[in-house]
């Protein structure tokens, strides 16, 4: 069954890659949305900011949809348990997220200032709330989530909505938001000039600075949290249910992987280096370099969390032995193999045509352009 | 050279279509029908649009000819 275990690990890594893609690409658009009201003082300025991401937000959002689809396909039990367990939070995420496409398409259709102002608030909410939820969901994984299963794998969530808003989760949520603000600022810098550029520059530095502080804070905090350790399990690459393992909770246990494999410290290092680099690049007005460093920061931050949690994906606080790991929640070998085939073919293709789309639409967006193409611009 | 590239491109597409038809025809005949049918619907509709232009031009010519006669 070595092949099955390999596939499981590959899909765990691929899911990580998709979440990083989501964080970078969706995070930058949401960052632009979140800072829209502050980076743009006039309507034209705000429209410039929106049109910088205008041709791409739709494609970028598919990273989110793909992330959801990949969890569903590769780790159905995680999808089923997490989405239903985090019910109210998920609704919050969904309701704010579904306003965003409408914001892009509908905001500039009417000239009314009140109408546009309303949608600008929508951009703020639909940028900030999903990013906070995204980070807070990760934060909650370190705490464990109150769920358990019955014999037939019906999951029961026994916590409350407020339980998901614990301090560590909020810190992670704000970390995720600050990274989005940083990326949003850098993206606006890439596509705008003048006052817009300067304000975006300030916000990008602010986002990076807060990000560094919170990432450090979470890193220290995690020593005090109970980490999950697999005591016994049917094994890797063995078809199983989450009812057949035993798990212990040890204080500081989330650092066990780092102690065992010191090379993993490269992940948090990449996170800090990326954020610090992005901050300096923003200060030096080198926004393209800053954007790539910001992407590195996301990779480092998500990689840090993933490396700490491995092999856990959704720890249970009600009954730690029912925690979901990649070994007990993944799809069958056949599904993983087929999906891998599709991913190997299509992910490079997607990266290629996405890059082409960015290349075609490269350059700065100007006020002139917006006023001339009033009817079609966002 | 340009023509040659197009020739190669279209040959690749043609071989691809034959391959697709052979595979889909056996197991997914309706999928294949969709591909062919969609192309047909789109092209007939496009041809219909182009035909309208021709019809209008003819109508204008005919009107002009009648005006000349009178």
């Amino acid at each position, binding site marked *: 069954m070595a092949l099955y275990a390999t596939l499981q690990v590959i899909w765990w890594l691929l899911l990580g890659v998709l979440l990083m893609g989501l964080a970078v690409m969706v995070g930058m658009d949401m960052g632009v949305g979140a800072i829209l009201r502050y980076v743009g003082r006039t309507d034209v300025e705000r429209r410039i900011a929106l049109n910088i991401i205008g*041709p791409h937000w*739709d*494609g970028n*959002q*598919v990273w989110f*949809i793909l992330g*959801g*689809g*990949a969890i*569903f*396909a*590769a780790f*159905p*039990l995680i*999808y*089923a*348990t997490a989405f*239903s367990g985090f*019910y109210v939070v*998920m*609704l919050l995420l*969904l309701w704010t*997220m*579904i306003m965003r*496409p*409408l914001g892009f398409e*509908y905001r500039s259709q009417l000239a009314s200032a009140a109408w546009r102002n309303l949608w600008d608030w929508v951009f703020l909410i639909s940028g900030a709330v999903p990013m906070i939820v995204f980070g807070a969901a990760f934060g909650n994984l370190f705490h464990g989530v109150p769920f358990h299963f019955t014999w*037939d*794998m*019906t*999951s029961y*969530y026994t916590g409350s909505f407020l339980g998901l808003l614990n301090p560590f989760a909020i810190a992670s949520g704000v970390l995720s938001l600050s990274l989005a603000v940083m990326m949003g600022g850098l993206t606006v810098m890439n596509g705008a000039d003048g006052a817009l550029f300067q304000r975006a520059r300030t916000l990008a530095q602010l986002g990076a600075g807060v990000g560094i502080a919170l990432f450090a804070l979470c890193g220290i905090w995690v020593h005090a949290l109970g980490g999950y350790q697999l005591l016994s399990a049917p094994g890797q690459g063995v078809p199983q*249910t989450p009812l057949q393992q035993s798990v212990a909770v040890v204080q500081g246990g989330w650092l066990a992987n780092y102690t065992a494999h010191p090379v993993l410290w490269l992940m948090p290092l990449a996170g800090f280096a990326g954020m610090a680099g992005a901050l300096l690049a923003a200060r030096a007005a080198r926004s393209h370099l800053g954007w790539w460093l910001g992407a590195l920061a996301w990779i480092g931050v998500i990689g840090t969390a993933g490396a700490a949690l491995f092999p856990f994906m959704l720890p249970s606080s009600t009954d730690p032995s029912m925690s979901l790991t990649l070994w007990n929640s993944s799809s*069958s070998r*056949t599904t993983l193999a*087929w*999906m891998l085939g*599709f*991913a190997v073919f299509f992910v490079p293709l997607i990266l290629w045509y996405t890059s082409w*789309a960015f290349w*075609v*639409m*490269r350059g700065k*967006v100007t006020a002139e352009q917006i006023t*001339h193409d009033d*009817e*079609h611009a966002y | 050279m340009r023509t040659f590239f197009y020739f190669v491109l279209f040959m690749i597409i043609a071989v691809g279509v034959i391959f697709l038809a052979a595979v889909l025809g056996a197991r*997914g005949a*309706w*999928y294949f029908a*969709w591909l062919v049918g969609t192309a*047909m*619907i*789109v092209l007939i*509709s*496009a041809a*219909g*649009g182009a035909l309208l*232009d021709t019809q209008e031009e003819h*109508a204008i010519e005919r009107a002009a000819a009648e005006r000349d006669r009178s």
Partner: protein
Amino acid sequence: MMINGTVVTLSRIQFASTALYHFLFVPLTLGLSFLLAAIETVYVTTGKPIYKDMARFWGKLLMINFALGVATGLTMEFQFGTNWSFYSGFVGDIFGAPLAIEGLMAFFMESTFIGLMMFGWERLSRGQHLAVTWLVAFGSNLSALWILVANSFMQNPHGAAFDPLTMRMQLTSFQQLIFNPDAQSKFVHTSVAGYVTAAIFVAGVSAYYMLRNRHVELAKRSFRMAALFGVLATIAVITLGDALGFVDARVQPTKLAAMEAVWQSEPAPMPFNLIAFPSQARRENLGAVRVPYLLSLLVTHSLSGTVPGADALERRAVQQIESGIPAVQALKVLARDPGNAAALAEFNAHRKDLGYGFLVQRYAPDLNDVTPAQIDRAARDIMPPVAAVFWSFRVMVALGLLMLAYFVIAVLYTLRNKIHRKSWLLKMSVWMIPVPFIANEAGWLVAELGRQPWTVFDVLPTWMSASTHSVAYMAFSLIGFLVLYTVFIAVEMYLMVRAIKLGPAAHGDPGGPRSPPRPALAPRVAPAAPYGGKLEG
């Protein structure tokens, strides 16, 4: 194990209403993207600027619609996990794969290129832009393909088997999943139904302009193209509808019995219920108008074929339930003790009826001594709500035939180039706009209500598929969706009607460059180039 019945009902209402809502926007995108591809193909081959105006105008309406399609599609992707978590865990191994592939193969392509389609007019050559438009069209329809592959697994679970080691369904054959006969005919049926929707929409809006004598040249061309597009698509919809019925007769006999309101089995050739008033409680029709021979002919394509009635299907279900009970009991043993060989043998002997064991668990949760009354009750559950399915089906078919008749007339007049003088036909065209939308919704109802009481046909009953939420949570989310979606549709309708009333002329300043290039790139976008050029008035 037992999920509150009210929660299940509320979950069903939420799923049905959000899916029906989503399905208001999707078909228009499916069809309008290909109609745009047709329009732009004419533009690129003839070089006439009016076709570019058409492409940009219909493209703008497409975007207004697309935004809501995307937004409400997100809801659907979430909802399997949030509200149907048992279902998602139970069949995610199979059902999740097409959804993920949809993202990889289709939705990424559609969404990336739709941005270029809208914003890339000045940045791409004509050929490139045409290719982008075609890719958007294929992307949106391939999306539909994978979603319907997933849906067809629920209708006809091919290529999967239950694994007692993991307590869930697992994929056994990917080929069987994608070449599922139900998926094939349903995908083509749905996709071309989208073409019909777009054709009626474009024809209706064009007719509105001709009636008001505005943008007549643009409207005439749009109408012509839409009418040809629509007549062919309607023929295809009806053909594939028949193919789908043929498949259903084999794989979902209960759905077919409900669609045709067949309570009692009859010898061939069976009569067709043109109109009937089915009563679920009395298991019969309270009056029906019947056409002799027609049902056998329609459904089995022969005079000697028969369709089993509800009575025969329920008798069969009793046996399946009796065989399903030991399957569930063996599974309970295996959950505690995966190595138990006796339980595994018992399970394997009855595994094909596992779903029927779940079905009766609704009335006998522990399955220890199931009474014949409980079995009968579960057996009666296998029939979907007959009256609703029967009438949805009739509405769909009647509207389909109406649209066929409409398109034939429209094509006749538009080919003679007389359409702009036939005001009765133009008025009718405007009134036809809601028709395909109603037919689409009715079609969804036939397919998904007809699948009841199962989420996965014959495998997983609806009553146990939902998440274990409280009624309060479900009421909260349902109200949230109700408020949000009502606001959305009001805004969408307002903007759509406004964009139509403004019309294409309001779009650019005629004579001026449409949209100046981004300065840094001026050489790429020379306004003097034949395509970047001027609008003809």
